[in-house]
């Protein structure tokens, strides 16, 4: 094993060697630089391998032939090896990305680059306080110089100013650091970190006080290098103006090294200093993310994000007292995620010609780079399967176990903010107008592309490693290797195949998975399994209508299905949450594919992540520190914890079912999705939320929260959701939006049913689960087919399509009859159970509310069919054809299902009914012949079908017979208002259809909830926008910030310290 010392000597030797070369031998110099960086990486990698594979203890490296503390010593252990490898690799890859610049500037720039990388490694390796200072100064100077790399290309003096600002601040920092070091030395008589850590606790009286003060100065100085809020304006200016390849180093490597230095310091200071680290860290995390919201410059945005992430890790380090041995795993996971993602994003930014976030739309033609971007932002947001996810999971659990709830909340809030701007950015990439100048010459920027792809590979490799580590730690299977997930990821590799192949594969996969697992499900899960898997493959039939390759569709869709498949099999909180995140992310990508779905997909992911965070918090609270727990154990929770857990989980699940107040993402997301995606996200995905609620209610049941029966609250929410959802639906002009609002209402019914907590209520909810899947999928496909043919979703622009699209009409007709529950179709069964169920409600008011929702549903459904298919045909649609075969086919299958279920509802219902007896033994249905009897009434579907059928057919036949010679009237063969209409536009009144209702009740449909959430986001944005103005750009102001920061932390921190 080559001594880690040679990371330093190699870099220095090479840097000095470069000076011997002639100025013109730049190629050679560049080669030496790369070789040296590769050598340094190799040394670190060797050590990392040794430590990881053999688990040997850290190795001390003495210098000067003298033992510490009398001479400087270095140490390399697992963490050091990993960090130096990270630093050196980032240095190497950035050097590749910097090829042009370095070659243009010559050997001096390369030497500085080498020294910078070396100094960062030095910070990590050294165990001497003053040596740490030297390496820090080296970093500062090298960084200030390297900022100028961008001057070569831009030459506008901005980087120069940024570098100067950095030097100003660093002067203050080094003054504090030096004074701190000398007094700490004076107090303890040593400069060795470990020695000082041993000596410090032994100090007493005045010496201890003096030492505390000195340590404060050291600590604050090193923390200041982490760019804490608010003393970080200089860093932002650097991020914005520097060459992105340098920013990659500055963000990934410098941040990592400085964090490690703080970690060493905390070793000296002991636990008393942890709260200060946490405080600074979390404030920085939240504030930087908040300030990032209004950013429009990509590199500055990434700068804010870097600062935020560093803050988060600092906060994690500050929690070492409770994280204990997990600190390395957690902080490491976060740090590596941050470093790789941020480096990758900065390298990527080197490919983008302009600095606006929208300019990244240039990436759109490059699936691989898009995938890299997605991986990076997912990594930053802590989504599975990346290391940050595991880290966040453990962190939140440990925090919750210790009751550090405020910190937990702030972390999740900050993470949500961060996800907000990152995913908004992704939306820009996918949806905004690409600038004229596309990714400028990818071949030319080989280095940056290579570096980005290397980061991508590292990201996934690390996911695998962290999954394995998690496996070792909790004795479980690596989730990245879960079959559904692998199947979904495989589509990334198969994306070059044509649609029909991939579609067949996807369908086969879903069915095969169902076949493999169907024995495992109890009837309740079976319902969901059938909807998710069989139902999923049914909706996928519609995808055959697409041609070409449809890049990106299948990985996203299969990711969602993988999540769904894993969700119903999950038995413990970890698996459940992983599945939950996967389906959320997958569906987000699916929704984002819609043409105008950018803002809606964003609000979807934000609400979903917010909900997911609540679920995470709920799980964490429930486990009380254990890494995960069996979902069934939720039942064992007791007061006062239980209601809180219930509340968090319920709200989390309800964001997915779009309960009122949390519903605003749904209409846009479902309406703007592609034709075959809408049924997936509406008919199938919404059920995931219900599934969560079912699991929750099955285990936790009734909870009392400060005197409020939470189930009753849910009853109210369900009822209000149903009412408002339906009410909003009747005023929609957009057919798919109408259906989307209708889904909100339907989910309200289902929630209401669940909240009843009795046999009939659950039966009703499960009926809604099934029926809603069938008819909402069908209606979305039907309407989607119409929209595809007519090119619009505005219903008032359509009309009279019945003759042109008869099959779609039939599907819609059957669908609305089923939804409105008009007998004799299957919807009536649901309604019948529904009315029976609500009779059991103890709370009458919500019952009335949900009751009122019924007729309203009828109104919007009528509107849907009337405005699209009846009325007057429009000129421009005279030649419209029936929807494509593959879109019609599933609709017809659904029609068949509805008819069958209408006659024999027992097919499914009976089993569910029987199964529910396990949970609610009383109040079940009685099945007697074809009659179904409840405690209130009875119902005979077969008889109804026959009676209605006979009357109906008799009358119809007679009417047809007597009018057998009647001719169909041509559209304009009419007279009204004493005129003959000649244009269909003059004859259509479908716009603002239920005008009387709007006049009477319009106030109820004011978008108050939307107003609330948009005010919230506006407030956050405005706050961020105002606050960031205090980064005036004046280097002196930044110095003020720094000093103020030091003083404030001093006043706060030292006051708190014992």
């Amino acid at each position, binding site marked *: 094993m080559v001594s880690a010392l040679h990371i330093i000597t190699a870099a220095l030797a090479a840097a000095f060697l470069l000076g*011997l070369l002639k100025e013109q031998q730049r190629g050679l110099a560049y080669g030496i630089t790369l070789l040296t960086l590769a050598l340094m990486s190799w040394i670190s990698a060797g050590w990392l391998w040794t430590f990881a594979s053999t688990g040997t203890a850290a190795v001390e490296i003495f*210098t000067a032939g003298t033992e510490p503390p009398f001479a400087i010593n270095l140490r390399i252990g697992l963490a050091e090896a990993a960090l130096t490898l990270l630093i050196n690799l980032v240095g190497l890859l950035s050097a590749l990305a910097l090829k042009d610049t370095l070659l243009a500037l010559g050997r001096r720039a390369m030497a500085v680059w080498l020294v910078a990388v070396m100094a960062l490694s030095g910070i990590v390796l050294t165990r001497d306080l003053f040596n740490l200072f030297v390496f820090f100064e080296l970093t500062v100077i090298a960084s200030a110089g390297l900022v100028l790399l961008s001057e070569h290309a831009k030459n506008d003096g901005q980087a*120069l100013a940024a570098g100067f600002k950095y030097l100003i601040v660093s002067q203050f920092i080094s003054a504090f650091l030096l004074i701190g070091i000398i007094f700490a030395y004076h107090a303890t*008589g040593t400069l060795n970190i470990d020695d000082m850590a041993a000596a410090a606790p032994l100090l007493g009286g005045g010496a201890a006080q003096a030492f505390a003060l000195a340590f404060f100065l050291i600590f604050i100085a090193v923390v200041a290098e982490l760019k804490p809020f608010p003393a970080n304006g200089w860093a932002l200016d650097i991020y914005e103006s520097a060459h992105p390849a340098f920013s990659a180093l500055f963000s990934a490597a410098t941040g990592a090294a400085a964090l490690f230095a703080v970690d060493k310091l905390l070793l000296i200071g002991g636990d008393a200093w942890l709260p200060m680290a946490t405080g600074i860290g979390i404030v920085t995390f939240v504030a930087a993310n908040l300030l990032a919201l209004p950013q429009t410059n990509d590199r500055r945005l990434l700068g804010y994000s870097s600062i935020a992430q560093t803050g988060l890790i600092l906060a994690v380090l500050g929690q070492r007292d409770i994280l204990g041995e997990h600190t390395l795993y957690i902080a490491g996971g976060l740090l590596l995620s941050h470093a790789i993602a941020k480096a990758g994003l900065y390298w990527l930014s080197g490919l983008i010609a302009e600095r606006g976030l929208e300019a990244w739309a240039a990436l759109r033609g490059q699936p691989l780079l898009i995938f890299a971007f997605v991986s990076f932002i997912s990594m930053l947001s802590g989504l599975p399967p990346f290391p940050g996810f595991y880290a966040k999971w453990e962190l939140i659990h440990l925090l919750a176990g210790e009751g550090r709830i405020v910190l937990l909340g702030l972390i999740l809030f900050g993470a949500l903010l961060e996800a907000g701007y990152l995913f908004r950015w992704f939306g820009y990439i996918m949806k905004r107008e690409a600038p004229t100048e596309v990714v400028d010459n990818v071949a030319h920027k080989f280095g940056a592309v290579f570096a980005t792809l290397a980061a991508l590979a590292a990201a996934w490799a690390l996911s695998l490693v962290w999954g394995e580590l998690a496996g070792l730690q909790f004795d479980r299977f690596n989730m990245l290797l879960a079959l559904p997930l692998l199947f979904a990821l495989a589509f990334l590799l198969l994306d070059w195949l044509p649609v029909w192949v991939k579609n067949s594969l996807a369908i086969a996969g879903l069915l095969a998975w169902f076949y493999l697992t169907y024995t495992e499900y109890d009837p309740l899960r079976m319902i969901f399994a059938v909807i998710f898997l069989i139902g999923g493959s049914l909706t996928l039939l519609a995808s055959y209508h697409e041609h070409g390759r449809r890049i990106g569709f299948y990985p996203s869709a299969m990711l969602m299905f993988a999540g769904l498949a894993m969700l119903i099999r999950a038995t413990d909180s970890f698996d459940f949450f992983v599945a939950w995140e996967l389906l959320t992310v997958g569906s987000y990508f699916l929704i984002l594919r819609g043409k105008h779905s950018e803002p809606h997909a964003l609000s979807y992911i934000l609400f979903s992540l917010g909900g997911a965070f609540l679920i995470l918090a709920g799980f964490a609270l429930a486990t009380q520190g254990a890494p995960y727990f069996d979902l069934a154990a939720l039942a064992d929770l007791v007061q006062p914890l239980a209601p809180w857990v219930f509340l968090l989980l319920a709200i989390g699940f309800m964001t997915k079912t779009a309960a009122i107040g949390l519903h605003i993402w749904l209409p846009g997301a479902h309406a703007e999705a592609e034709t075959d995606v809408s049924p997936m996200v509406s008919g199938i995905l919404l059920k995931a939320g219900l599934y969560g609620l079912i699991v929750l209610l099955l285990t936790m049941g009734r909870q009392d929260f400060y005197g409020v029966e939470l189930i009753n609250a849910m009853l109210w929410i369900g009822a209000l959701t149903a009412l408002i959802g339906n009410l909003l639906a009747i005023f929609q002009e957009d057919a798919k939006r109408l259906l989307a609002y209708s889904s909100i209402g339907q989910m309200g019914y289902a929630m209401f049913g669940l909240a009843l907590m009795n046999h009939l209520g659950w039966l009703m909810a499960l009926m809604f689960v099934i029926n809603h899947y069938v008819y909402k999928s069908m209606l979305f496909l039907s309407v989607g087919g119409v929209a595809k043919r007519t090119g619009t979703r505005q219903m008032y622009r359509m009309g009279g399509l019945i003759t042109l699209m008869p099959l779609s009409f039939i599907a819609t007709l059957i669908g609305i009859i089923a939804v409105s529950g008009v007998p004799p179709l299957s919807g009536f069964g649901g309604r019948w159970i529904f009315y029976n169920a609500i009779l059991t409600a103890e709370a009458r008011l919500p019952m009335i509310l949900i009751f009122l929702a019924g007729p309203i549903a009828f109104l919007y459904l009528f509107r849907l069919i009337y405005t699209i298919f009846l009325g007057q045909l429009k000129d421009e649609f005279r030649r419209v054809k029936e929807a494509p075969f593959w879109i019609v086919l599933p609709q017809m299958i659904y029609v068949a299902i509805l008819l069958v279920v209408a006659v024999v509802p027992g097919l499914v219902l009976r089993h569910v009914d029987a199964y529910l007896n396990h949970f609610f033994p009383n109040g079940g249905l009685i099945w007697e012949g074809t009659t179904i009897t409840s405690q209130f009434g009875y119902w005979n579907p077969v008889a109804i079908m026959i009676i209605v059928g006979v009357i109906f057919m008799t009358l119809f036949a007679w009417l047809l017979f007597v009018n057998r010679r009647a001719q169909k009237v041509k559209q304009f063969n009419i007279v009204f208002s004493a005129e003959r209409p000649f244009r269909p536009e003059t004859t259509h009144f479908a716009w603002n259809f239920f005008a009387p209702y709007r006049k009477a009740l319009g106030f109820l449909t004011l978008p108050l909830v939307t107003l609330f959430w948009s005010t919230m986001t506006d407030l956050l944005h405005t706050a961020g926008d105002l606050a960031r103005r205090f980064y005036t750009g004046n280097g002196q102001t930044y110095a003020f910030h720094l000093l103020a920061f030091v*003083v404030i932390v001093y006043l706060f921190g030292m006051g708190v310290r014992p």
Partner: protein
Amino acid sequence: MIKRAIALLLTLAVGALFASLLVGYVPDSELNHTARYYAERTAEDIGAANIVTAIIVTYRGLDTLGEVTVLFISAAIVGLVLAQGRVLNNAPNNAPRQTRAPVSELLSTGSRVLTPLILLLGVYVFVNGHLTPGGGFQGGAIVASGMLLLLLADPLKQFSHRLIAVLESLSGLLFVGIGVLGVLLAGGFLDNRLLPIGTLGELFSAGVIPVIYSLIGLKVGAEFSSMLASLSETNHTENSEET
């Protein structure tokens, strides 16, 4: 003047912090254990009469290497910064230079007499670093001051950048090389006992310390000179750009 008031306030707050440091400061009455080790063992282990030098070059040699590197990259960056906007290729500037009024006879002659003396003093200071106060940095600075004198006397004077660079790099390389040799042949990186430590107080004692300190002296001198040269050259070109 709110800004000044705040500045004053902040300064005072920092001052209060310092004041408590000052108040809490109790001078040691005897050496702490680190210092004691140095006082007791330096002569025996290192063989340098100047304990400070022993610490700088050997015990804390890594710091010193870093220090040298700081100067090295400072010089490099100063060169880079000032080179930007100029012809990138830093080859000897053949463009006809602006001539100024010749410096006075007295000045140029005086500088010519003094410079060798200054250089000599510098060399003396760094060669004797392990024995007397002074050392590589001080000596290097003195050497550079000789250069400064030359520059002041004749602002248009050109130094050979190439020579400076080679000197700087070579001494740096040797420094690192000796350090690594210490790992291979002696007790560790920068161990001075590569060479026999000799007798305390003699010129050729303390192992490689004199060698290293000389290298440092050369290197520091070269680096300062290079910075000075860069700065002074820029001045001309900037001026000429403006006129």
